[in-house]
């Protein structure tokens, strides 16, 4: 049998007003906050502008630093937007691309382009893995991850202890009403927290 959802209204005036008032306050604060355009994780924005740090006299190789590491790059300085070959391969995480910004026909800037997916980066951050391929900024979360692990152990132990029904040390069906059973809590379940009174201590 299915029933149509019915709204339950009425008697909710005060909480409703509180909730709406809070919402209005929050909305005013959020609209008033000087938020600009989001940076996002696109290729276009993940590009870090890296200026060549050194250049060989012939102008066909130099070094560039990205993500805290310095790479030697070799490139053909006369061709615009030509791909750069990277001497010590930084891996798939970062690509370098040269661009001529001054318009003198010489490439003067190398862009480091992130090639790592967001999901991959989440993995690096979560396990605090030092990797050249880590391209998105963020804090590392190894400790938090491990604490979560313990939380799950604690939560599951707690949930199982609570949800399991047992009588006289023996596990019976996991669910059901206590009162529908023949022998509710024996002395093992009797507790002293309320002075041992049967009614839960409402005296």
């Amino acid at each position: 049998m299915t029933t149509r959802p019915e709204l339950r209204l009425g008697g909710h005036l005060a909480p409703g007003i509180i909730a709406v008032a809070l919402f209005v306050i929050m909305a005013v604060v959020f609209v008033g906050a000087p938020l600009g355009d989001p940076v996002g994780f696109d290729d276009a924005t993940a590009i870090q502008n890296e200026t060549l740090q050194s250049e060989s006299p012939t102008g066909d190789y130099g070094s560039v630093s990205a993500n805290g590491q310095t790479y030697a790059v070799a490139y053909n300085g006369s061709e615009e937007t030509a791909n750069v070959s990277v001497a010590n391969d930084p891996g798939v995480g970062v690509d370098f691309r040269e661009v001529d910004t001054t318009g003198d026909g010489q490439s003067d800037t190398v862009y480091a382009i992130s090639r790592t997916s967001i999901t991959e980066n989440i993995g690096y951050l979560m396990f605090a893995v030092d990797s050249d391929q880590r391209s998105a900024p963020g804090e590392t979360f190894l400790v938090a991850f491990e604490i979560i692990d313990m939380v799950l152990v604690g939560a599951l132990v707690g949930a199982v202890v609570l949800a399991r029904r047992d009588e006289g040390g023996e596990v019976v069906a996991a669910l059901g009403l206590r009162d529908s059973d023949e022998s509710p809590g024996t002395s093992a379940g009797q507790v002293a927290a309320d002075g041992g009174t049967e009614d839960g201590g409402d005296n």
Partner: protein
Amino acid sequence: MADTTWLTLAPAFLLGLTGLLVLYVDSIGRSTKGPIAVLSLLGSLAVAGVAIALPDALGLGPAGWSFVSFTLLGMFALALFVQPGSQNRRLIAGLSTAGAVGALGVAAAFLFTFDGEPVNPFGDALVVDGMSLLFAVIVASVTAMVTVASYNYIAEHSYQAEYYALVLLAGTGMTLMASANSLVTVFVALELASLPSYALVAFLKENKGSVEAGLKYFLVGALSSAVFAYGVSLVYGATGSLQLTAVQNAITGEFTGMLGMGVVMVVGGIAFKTASVPFHFWAPEAYEGAPAPISAFLSSASKAAGFVIAFRVFTEAFLQVSESAGEFLVLGADWVLVFQILAVVTMTLGNLAAVTQDKVKRMLAYSSVGHAGYVLMSLAALSGGGATATAKIEAGQFVLAGGMMHLFVYGFMNTGAFLFIALAEYWDVGRTFEDFTGLGRQAPVASVAMTVFMFSLAGLPPFGGFLSKYLLFGATVNSGFVWLAAVAIVNSAVSLYYYSKLVKALWFDERPDDKKPLEISSRPVGLYAAVIFAAVVTTAMYGVFGPVSDAAIEAAAALL
């Protein structure tokens, strides 16, 4: 040599590992699961060995590996299903106590050999400094007393191993809260402390009071953790980071509204953990309904852990102190003002409500709310004291240290008081003041201990509570908040009324005729040991107070 900074977390490791070990040991005795337990234990140890032998494998570093083995241990512990009944009660209780005492010893040793240089094990998310070690000492000593007392208290119950494991896991969470240096770590450590606590409060499944207390504790806790999470998200939105120092550096004044709202919500989350207004109303319910050792655990250790978060988050992230520039800026909302209001309301409400109670455990619960109000003063009085920034900083260090010391002393005297209630519940004494009449003649040693706790909680001179209250109130006056200290002193005077009411009931009152005469035949060893230990420490606080308060002042100086 491999990086060994992670060893500074030894107290938390010890507590957590003991918690998991207890689950293993409980399983080993069973015919079907024993072999699995032994195998998985060995497997985890092997991984831990690899972790130490190959520190740099896979780029994870020793920290990563030590944690991987920890994870495996946890996962295997889950695989061994939880089951009722325990093979060896004594072994499990002993192991838990050994773990807690070990953690206490390590933490104390670290505290007294601490060189003043904070260590960041595992990056910036954690910090081990004087304050975190001091609070590790508090949490570990409360845990130790609670595990010892529980040996008798839950003697008749199923799920012994699970009980101790939950206590130890919650203790781990509280210890980690003391070290948390990032809002992420704060949040997850807070949950690690909370989730096992919910289960522990409702541990007496057949007892309506306990279940109801568990429900209410859980509901308020879930609500406040949601509010806290939302607050953290707003702080992140205003600053772009969660690490406390980074948050402070990133506060620009651009997102004042968002940051202020976030700060207020974070205050809400902390108020829950410390049982302060506005999230205080769970406290009397939960403390009254919970098994008494758990009440002791929550009202002492959990409260201390909540406060350590408050101290660290608010001084590191939302306060800009620069001695050279003469700056002392409160960032975000004016949280000092918020804490002033909360402190006054909390202590007044707690103490007035405690006066009207006729059940002893509930009276203690409300008095615990009142004490949260006293400690809140140490945040409320931060901005006062002197015209120059230097003077303000020094005054601030004193109030912070006063708050820490009060929590330290409170950890013993309040735990002891609740464990005395545990003793009374063990004897089936009853719950009201009248039920306690004449207990002084029947159980003089325990009653003397309880008298010590009561007078110490009230802040009477010969005991530890006097010293910490003196330090805290004096520092508040020193910060220029005479009115705040006056309110606190009036409250202390009120509290003397209901504390002495219990003492009077114990020793002087005639037992009403309608009450059945007390018959106390047993002397439970564990409960007695814990109560007497707490009483001895509370009385002998004069010897300990000096060095510990020096450590507290140093710890506070590191914060400001």
